[in-house]
């Protein structure tokens, strides 16, 4: 397989689709920017799916972005063995949390008839791609460690070469198959992002974290309304 195609053409193509379709969808169908929450249909299994999945995924993603932006910081941190072990154990633990959450999410979608009814083909595509992404990521952590260090030395320069429009795929071309699969699947996820529920990432109501609590008061007599009907 042509490495330049996989690690230069595919990334640029998926980023182009991401930006063009994301903006176009926001301009034309603004109110479809949602994950269409099914929390009201079922809440208990939803909690054990959504919470570990989102915490695991967001922190893992932040670690990837951090190692891309500041690779030298990561290498300095990892220069003491116990700190390297700490970061690797944390990374794999977050991967396990993400996987536990994702399995719960998928099982809930499969087993709960109400939730299954509101699940689209696009949702299944996203879950499938995410399962591949998390499983390959964990496989890399276990069989090809220590990724936090070699990401900073081999993957970060490749990503920067893409950003600076001087693609150099030499450091990625020799990576093991599991790493190549993880990277390619990540760009497939970026490519399908604007067509799926993943767009909710861009409209997270972050201000809810700092917003003052609001109490909704009903002043009508609900019993009389019910009897009237």
């Amino acid at each position, binding site marked *: 397989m042509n490495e330049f195609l996989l690690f230069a053409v595919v990334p640029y193509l998926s980023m182009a689709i991401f930006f063009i379709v994301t903006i176009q969808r926001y301009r034309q169908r603004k109110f479809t920017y949602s994950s269409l929450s099914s929390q009201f249909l079922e*809440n*208990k299994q939803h*909690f054990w799916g959504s*919470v*570990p999945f989102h*915490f695991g995924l967001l922190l893992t993603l932040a670690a990837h972005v951090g190692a891309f932006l500041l690779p*030298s910081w990561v*290498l300095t941190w*990892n*220069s*003491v*063995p*116990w700190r*390297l*072990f700490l970061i*690797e*154990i*944390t990374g*794999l*633990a*977050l*991967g*396990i*949390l993400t996987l*536990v959450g994702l399995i719960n999410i998928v099982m809930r979608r499969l087993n709960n008839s109400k939730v299954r009814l509101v699940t689209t083909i696009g949702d299944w595509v996203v879950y499938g791609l995410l399962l591949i992404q998390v499983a390959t990521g964990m496989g890399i952590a*276990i*069989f*090809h*460690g*220590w*990724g936090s*260090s*070699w990401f*900073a*030395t*081999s993957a970060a320069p490749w990503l920067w070469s893409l950003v600076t429009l001087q693609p*150099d795929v*030499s*450091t990625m*071309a*020799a*990576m*093991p198959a599991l790493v190549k699969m993880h990277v390619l699947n990540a760009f497939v996820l970026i490519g399908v992002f604007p067509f799926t529920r993943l767009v909710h990432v861009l409209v997270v109501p972050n201000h809810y974290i700092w917003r003052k*609590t609001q*109490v*909704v*008061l009903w002043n009508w007599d609900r019993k009389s309304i019910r009897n009237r009907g």
Partner: protein
Amino acid sequence: MQSNNHYLLAIILTVAGSSVLAGRSASAQQPPSEETIAFFRQNCYSCHTIGGGRLAGPDLKDVSKRKDRSWLLKFVMDPKGVIDSGDPYAQKIFREARGVYMQAVPGIQSSRVEKLLDLIDAESEAESPLFAGVQIDDRPLTAADADLGRQLFSGLASFESGAPSCISCHTLASLGGLGGGRLGPDLTTVYSRLEGRKALAAWLSTPPTDIMKPLFARHPISKDENLALVAYLKQVTEQGTEEAEPSNMSFLLIASLVAALSLVLIDFIWRARYRAVRRPLVEATTR
């Protein structure tokens, strides 16, 4: 006497004529280009010298006299394929290299191999060959060298060029904890695998593997650092330990335990999640 002079003149003319012809044929062959020299230095020199003796691979001086060009071409294009086909000479080289396969250069073309063979032929005849071996200090290795090597390996000391520490991708039986990385091979016995100081130092000066090559071309290892690593890896090999058992299982177990504790923590933080939300809020505001 006169016939003797004629005889001498004939000899002189013959020798002079053949010298001119030989000179012509020599000049007909292009001298190796700088690009071919740089390619050899980057891709071949870590395992082969031309006239400097054996490293991880054989000395290539006069290699064209040992095997014909078509065989050499086939071997360089696909060393593993030729060795695995059972070719007797390839098997002999493989045994001499202690079972280490020569790495094929990805995407190498036959025209490139032809140029490399021309270079090897030219260098085999050269009076001061370019590739007679990396000049590494041959002073006795000290405990201080080995200690610096240990620090460079584990990342406690940094390489001058900013090259990554070895522990990122390699492990050693003596490392302890969760060991080193597993992207590259275990280096516990690398000193004996590469047959000692000279070959290991040459290997480190221009690492030829596909992952290390682009990385260390940008961040080369200095001669002092090279010597320190050789000293440390020699010490590790001489400790006589077996290669490390991968610590994958203990790594997975510890991470699973941390993940389980995180789930307990999540459950604790949101322990009130199925109780009333509105009533306590109303009570709090009307209190």
